[in-house]
């Protein structure tokens, strides 16, 4: 099993340090949460890992691969998938097509196969369609399979977003606030999916979330960020009683 190691990462925008000397180790097979107040740099960490930002200092390694300067498609091709906070779905396509798009790298036929279609292309499309169905089944999206994504409700779109990341067939899943803006019932659904993903699919999960109740409940490891600095880490219990963390969240007494 491979570790994702973010070491000494600094990310600067002009004169502002969005992240400074961040060290995070994500161990395989568990749920790691990254929390922190607004603007603490949680999403910046995910953006650095998934290749949308490149740190100005420090390295990001996954197993023996260096991801520091990798681009998003390279990162996703080695098995790190990302679900976005602000829905970045292909709105003009059906749920099915959105998910099939995530199978892009697994459809290995050439353009000439595609032009003729019969044979290899058809077979691979069907095989990957079966995989997509597995994800649809898991995420309980059967009802919306053929609906245009743009027409679905926010909660469902969020679920499609997670499903799409899952369709990439990742070993590591980065979830950026998958529960933001959801009602309690939808949140419970997503939590259930996350726990099942860990247990049944064996996927390592990195969760960025504001709902501390959820985070404390399901995480195995927590990192707390404030102003781009890691101010605390450990098991949920330890983090909850950490003085600096309480200060950052609630303020000094």
């Amino acid at each position, binding site marked *: 099993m491979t570790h994702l190691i973010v070491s000494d990462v600094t990310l600067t925008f002009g004169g502002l340090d969005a992240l400074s000397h961040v060290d995070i180790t994500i161990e395989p097979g568990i749920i790691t949460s990254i929390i922190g107040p607004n603007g603490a740099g949680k999403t910046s960490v995910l953006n650095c890992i998934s290749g949308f930002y490149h740190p100005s200092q420090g390295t990001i390694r996954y197993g023996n691969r260096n991801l520091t300067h990798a681009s998003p498609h390279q990162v996703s091709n080695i098995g790190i998938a990302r679900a976005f906070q602000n829905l*970045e779905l292909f709105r003009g396509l059906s749920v099915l097509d959105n998910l099939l798009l*995530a199978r*892009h790298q697994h459809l290995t036929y050439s353009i000439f196969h595609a032009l003729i279609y019969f044979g290899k292309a*058809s077979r691979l499309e069907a095989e990957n*369609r*079966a995989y997509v169905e597995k994800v649809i089944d898991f995420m309980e999206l059967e009802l919306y399979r053929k609906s245009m994504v743009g027409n679905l409700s926010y909660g469902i779109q969020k679920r499609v977003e997670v499903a799409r990341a899952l369709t990439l067939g990742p070993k590591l899943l980065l979830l950026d606030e998958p529960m933001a803006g959801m009602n309690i019932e939808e949140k419970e659904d997503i939590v259930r999916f996350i726990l099942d993903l860990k247990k049944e699919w064996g996927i390592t999960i990195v969760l960025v979330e504001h709902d501390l109740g959820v985070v404390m409940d399901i995480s195995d490891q927590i990192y707390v960020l404030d102003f781009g600095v890691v101010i605390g880490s450990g098991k949920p219990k330890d983090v909850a009683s950490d003085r600096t963390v309480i200060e950052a969240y609630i303020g000094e007494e």
Partner: protein
Amino acid sequence: MSSNRWLATGNYFTSYKEEQRIFTTSLDRSVMGVFLCVLFSWPLFFSIGNKYMLVVDNILVAVIAVIGLNLVTGFAGLISIGHAAFVGIGAYTVASFCRVLGDSHPLITHGWPPMIVAAGCMGALFGAVVGLPALRLKHLYLAIATLSFQMIFQWTINFMDFFDQGQTISVGRVFWVTGEVARNEHYLFWYYVILTVIVILGFGVRNLLRTRYGRCLVAVRDNDRAADAMGMHPGLVKVYAFGLAGFCAGVAGALHAYLYRGVGIDSFTLYHSINYLAMAIVGGLGTLQGAFWGPLAIRVLDLQVERLSEWAGSHVTAATNLTTALRPLSFGLVIVLFLMFEPRGIANWWRIFKSYVKLWPFRY
């Protein structure tokens, strides 16, 4: 469960392969078959004369070009204002062979099918090169990049001795298995060739659109950040889209060259680029059908405008020059009206009509 493959209802897919079909019912398939038979056989029963045959051929050539433009602008969302230049690349590929080998060299007169493919490849090459700015530029800036290619193309041809400064370079008569294609059969012969090319290209593109090579185009149009996260290189996809468009344009160009038996810069100007864009918009961007409706509508409109101004000219002498004014006017008006009232183009009307017929006599 027994099911009637002719009906639109009551048919359930039991395998993923069944769902991949282009035609879901036998009825759809037969309608398409009959339609193709009609397209191939009507010239045997009706004779419409060379003038109108040329119009038909012209529309079909435009269809091929617009299929390409629709791929890059409609599906991949990259506005290209230099499409006529790509068509020109195809035509001038044939023309350059004519200049070097002479216009009746066997390679040109007998080897026209590979020549058309070569012109397509040349178009694809230029398309990909012109698409390179797409790695960096977006939206309008990219459109300007394609516009600059149009300008460079026109300028280059206009000043190159090799291409006779843009004057017509003639292309020889081609040979078929029955011998040289005679003058009175010329347009009919090319009707069949172009139609065959369209059928091949149409099915090719249709197949492409149901595979990763078609989906990636739509992905970069809708959200290229997410496309990147889904494991495709958005820049390369855009370059590939331009290459694809260039291929179709190149094929159209070569057919244009053979059809008119000559290549001159007048057919590949900015005016034509915008014309192609208008066809794509009027037909329906992002639909394969749109590439068929658009050229048909615009060319028929053109014809009617010409007829109207002719009629007006015969009554009022001052109106003799009406064509020159009416043409751009009507043309611009149609684009504006479509963009305002039916941005999804004629393809959408067709969709509405089909669902109406399907449900008739019920409303929904």
